[in-house]
């Protein structure tokens, strides 16, 4: 058998397996029950407008808060990692490795139960949420931001310093703005990850007014014993995240062209 014939045979076999799989799913699944349990139009309709005005709104709000916190704190960590002062570098490295290495759920959980124990009172939910998710976000963003700053040619800092600008001013007005331009695509990716990670915030404990999308969907799943709410919130997630990932693609293409 020639190499070409062999290839054709393998490809044919793969198609066959695929078609058989699709047929098996199509014939064996109980479509009527599935439709009733996952695509209940009446139940889906009932979810509106709350799924948007409460759940999606909360998801976006938590994302925004955690992202802002993560960005500010991540920038600080990145600068510490690039610092000439050894303890700063060391501290930042330990922080970043710790919170990138732990499951986000564990960190959020620890913040959720840790604050009331450590400070004797419950803090406002928004603060706890911002911290819980923001601490994790900062660790990831710090590495992205550091890469961005290191991606700016050394000559930029030198030119700024040669004009008499201080290190801090040169960073703020020359290096950091250029670094951020480089990392807008990966940072947007992290935003998308963060949107999805808001679904972990249920462990902090929520009231009807503070539910985010997934918690909102799961609670309805439990009360109605029907999975339609999960399909609906899934669609809402996609409506938010897909445009963003497309945006990343456009930005990356533009970055590639400008180089």
């Amino acid at each position, binding site marked *: 058998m020639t190499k070409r014939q062999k290839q054709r045979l393998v490809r044919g076999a793969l198609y066959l397996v695929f078609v058989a799989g699709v047929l098996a799913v199509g014939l064996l699944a109980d479509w009527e029950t599935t439709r009733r349990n996952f695509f209940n139009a009446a139940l889906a309709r009932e979810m509106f407008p709350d799924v948007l005005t409460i759940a999606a709104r909360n998801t976006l709000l938590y994302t925004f808060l955690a992202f802002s916190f993560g960005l500010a704190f991540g920038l600080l960590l990145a600068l510490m990692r690039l610092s000439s002062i050894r303890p700063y570098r060391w501290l930042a490295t330990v922080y970043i490795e710790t919170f990138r290495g732990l499951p986000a759920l564990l960190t959020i959980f620890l913040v959720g139960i840790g604050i009331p124990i450590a400070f004797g009172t419950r803090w406002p939910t928004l603060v706890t949420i911002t911290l819980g998710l923001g601490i994790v976000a900062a660790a990831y963003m710090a590495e992205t931001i550091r890469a961005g700053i290191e991606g700016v040619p050394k*000559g*930029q800092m*030198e030119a*700024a*310093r*040669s004009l008499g600008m201080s290190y801090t001013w040169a960073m703020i007005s020359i290096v950091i703005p250029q670094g951020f331009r480089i990392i807008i695509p990966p940072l947007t990716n992290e935003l998308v990850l963060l949107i999805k990670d808001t679904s972990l915030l249920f462990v902090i404990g929520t009231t009807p007014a503070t539910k985010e999308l997934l918690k909102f969907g799961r609670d309805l799943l439990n009360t109605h014993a029907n999975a339609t709410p999960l399909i609906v919130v899934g669609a809402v997630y996609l409506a938010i995240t897909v445009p963003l990932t497309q945006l990343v693609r456009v930005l990356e293409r533009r970055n590639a062209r400008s180089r």
Partner: protein
Amino acid sequence: MATPANEVPAIEVRALHKSFGDLEVLKGIDFSVMPGEVVCVIGPSGSGKSTLLRCVNRLEESSSGQVLIEGDDITHPDADVDALRSRIGMVFQAFNLFPHLSVLRNLTIAQQRVRRRSRAEAREVAARTLERVGLSDKIDAYPSHLSGGQQQRVAIARALSMEPDMMLFDEPTSALDPELVGEVLAVMRDLARDGMTMMVVTHEMGFAKEVGDRVVFMDDGVVVEEGPPRKILTDPQHERTRRFLQMVG
């Protein structure tokens, strides 16, 4: 400048040593530039001439020795390096314009932040220096839209906008296409004619001969010889200088 010429050197380098790890790049340099003087530093690559230039405004930390800027020691641990640097303009081989800022902003940002000039004042100075390098029409352009020669002229204008007492040039034409070298050298020639104190690391022997008041030949981390351009370039005393000049042609 109020200081009369021949009194305090603009740049005075004393017993300067610089090592990168085990590699000794500067092996005790003594050297000075007087106010209004144009000194061209020549020598083979790896001779330490760029390192010397970068030690003058302390972009590179020296290992030992001193650099005095108009009498102030910039290598001293307590020196106000930023203030001293603002008196020294520097032009880089790779231009190093700020690509995210317009030409105008490239020229005004340090004026405002370091010289504490108002926006209007900084703008006025920027317009004046751009005219001096012949690029008034590019004030709103971005660096990426300029040719290499234009970028380097903007970089010179950026340094001039700080109204420095002296200018350092680190191989300012080495990254340029041959047809763009002339416009940059013309700007530098004008500067020299206007009495600017200049220290120029260069491979442009024609420029050194025509514009330089003095030529310094460096090789292997030491100053081999220095003197009037015509003498050094046509009648060098040292074998190493002779060999170098033969090579560059």
